[in-house]
């Protein structure tokens, strides 16, 4: 189960000072940036493509492929996505706080590969401490001439601006992030025509990559594409961070390779269920993902394909574990409430539908449910994500709205009787 660590290696080996310039350079830091400066753009893109590095922001799209789609107009921009706000996810926070230079080196590599001369690190506003660590690291890099005009004594210029969010999960969606960076409301843009690679920040070609994706790059250059690609089991590549939370004995971030099973993850990596209670359900890939239950999913392998085939996704790698004491109506309400609160409000189905769902669930939880309410909730969900299909047939601009139906689907598929108990008993049986 154990794999060679990639992004968390330095912080594991040197917990006390992994975030400092001294430790970073002492452990090979910035050597790969220097190396990249001697490589051609195409070579870097090719290398990243063949490493099989998949985006870690949720969509798991090949990073190298994304770069190769960048439109030719210039200036091009890089936006590093550190908005991490999906319930269950806290991995980027650790990377930002504990190894900011690693990300900066990744930014340099990405910028060279994509002819970017101004990169932005968009960090959610609530991450004050991680943002401080990053800003400090950026300042140090500027001081050493690793950022700014003519980095490392070459004629390559690179500015890095650390941008703080304002409290809006939707800004994690790449086009919403671009709007936000432009000083606008963080509303997702239409794709087409506003694909970031063509018409992104300031309508120019823009790469958006997750913090972890970018942080992977220095080690990929160091170990080579092939070695990185073969870290994982069979079809998958590299490592990836998973955030474990909820009713597990050992919550936390774990850098893993795909291919272990959910049972291994929850009971071995996570140390099992708190107080050895029974596992009831888990959310496999952040709050957006359709839920899994032990009867059907415990022995599935954790791979992109297997998870998709089972009707869910690995998303941002956040696993939220719920034990037998958890009220599923309440848990569903809490997840739906999140999406309703975070809806940007542009799309009618998301703006109206998510709040409607939240109201229905709250009524049921508070003992005011009607017999028709679960079907009503399913009907409302149907209007946001037609037929509750997987992958979703969205009636919305972005996937936020359709994400809100995942808990409803869980109630429909696995916990109908628990809903009925609420309605018949006019209250929550877990209270």
């Amino acid at each position, binding site marked *: 189960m154990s794999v060679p660590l990639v992004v968390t290696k330095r912080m594991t080996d040197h917990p006390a000072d992994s975030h400092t310039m001294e430790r970073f350079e002492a452990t090979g830091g910035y050597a790969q940036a220097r190396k990249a400066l001697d490589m051609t753009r195409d070579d870097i893109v090719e290398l990243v493509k063949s490493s099989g590095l998949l985006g870690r922001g949720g969509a798991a799209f090949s990073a190298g492929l994304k770069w190769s789609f960048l439109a030719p107009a210039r200036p091009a921009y890089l936006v590093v996505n550190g908005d991490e706000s999906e319930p269950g996810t806290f991995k980027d926070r650790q990377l930002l706080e504990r190894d900011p230079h690693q990300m900066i080196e990744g930014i340099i590599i990405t910028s060279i590969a994509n002819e970017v001369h101004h990169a932005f690190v968009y960090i959610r506003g609530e991450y004050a401490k991680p943002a401080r660590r990053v800003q400090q690291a950026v300042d140090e890099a500027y001081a050493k001439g690793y950022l700014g005009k003519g980095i490392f004594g070459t004629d390559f210029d690179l500015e890095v601006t650390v941008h703080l969010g304002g409290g809006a999960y939707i800004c994690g969606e790449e086009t919403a992030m671009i709007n936000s960076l*432009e*000083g606008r409301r963080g509303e997702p843009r239409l794709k087409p025509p506003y694909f970031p690679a063509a018409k992104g920040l300031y309508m120019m070609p823009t790469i958006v990559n997750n913090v972890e994706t970018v942080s992977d790059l220095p080690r990929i250059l160091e170990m080579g594409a092939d070695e990185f690609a073969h870290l994982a089991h069979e079809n998958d590549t590299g490592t990836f961070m998973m955030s474990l939370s909820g009713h597990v004995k050992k919550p936390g971030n774990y850098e893993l390779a795909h291919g272990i099973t959910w049972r291994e993850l929850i009971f071995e990596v996570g140390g099992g269920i708190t107080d050895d209670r029974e596992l009831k359900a888990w959310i496999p890939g952040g709050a957006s993902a359709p839920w899994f239950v032990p009867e059907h999913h415990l022995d599935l392998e954790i791979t992109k394909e297997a998870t998709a085939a089972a009707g869910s996704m690995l998303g941002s790698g*956040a696993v939220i574990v719920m034990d037998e004491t958890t009220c599923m109506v309440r848990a569903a309400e809490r997840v739906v*409430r999140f999406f309703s609160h975070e809806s940007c409000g542009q799309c009618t189905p998301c703006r109206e539908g998510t709040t409607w769902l939240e109201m229905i669930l709250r009524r049921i939880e508070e003992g005011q449910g009607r017999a028709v309410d679960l079907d009503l909730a399913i009907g409302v969900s149907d209007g946001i994500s037609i037929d509750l299909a997987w992958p979703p047939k969205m009636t919305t601009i972005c996937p936020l709205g359709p994400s809100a139906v995942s808990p409803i689907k869980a109630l429909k598929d696995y916990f109908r009787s628990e809903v009925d108990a609420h309605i018949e008993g006019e209250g929550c049986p877990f209270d």
Partner: protein
Amino acid sequence: MSRWSDETQIRAKEIISRYPEKRSAVMPLLYLAMAEDGYLSDEGMTEVGEWVDLTPAQVQAVASFYTMYKRQPTGKYLVSCCTSISCMLLGGDEVLHALEDESGVPHGETDEEGLLSVEHVECIGACGGAVALQVNYELIEGVTPEKARQLVQWLKAARPEAVNTDEMQELFGGVRSFDWAIRDEHAAVGPYPGFQPLGTIRQAGEE
């Protein structure tokens, strides 16, 4: 003619210079406006608009989209308790109630003195250290209802000029999402993020 202090104006210029287009500076400038007035006032939004050539309505459209720009006066300490799914599973609602009860301030409000504001928030990225809360965006993980009460008492009694995440974590925290490794030497001074470019941090312990 800016109402802002000279120092804030220097910061505003510096911030604007970090972006290719000045409209991009709206968000950091909104934080500056909050730091100037203690919250985001109508005058603050108008001022931000003047810096970046937007109408006050355009500025408000942006500001009101985000939850961290408080358009009502907020206490010196903004206590934000996570009640999203992972924290809820481990007692987030109970911690919130403890905060409300001990402080006498319900969610979304501020005490009469202007010392404490309490709010529940969606996920703050500390799910492995549930229940998590923040004071002026400085994090405490693994909080219990009992510790939450002690936090309120401490804020009321000690009234620190600035709050430091490690100090509070030691006093009131428990399980963490990950090893924090070393102490953070910074402290936040108001109900907005403590961040260098905004000038809203101090050295911890410095009064």
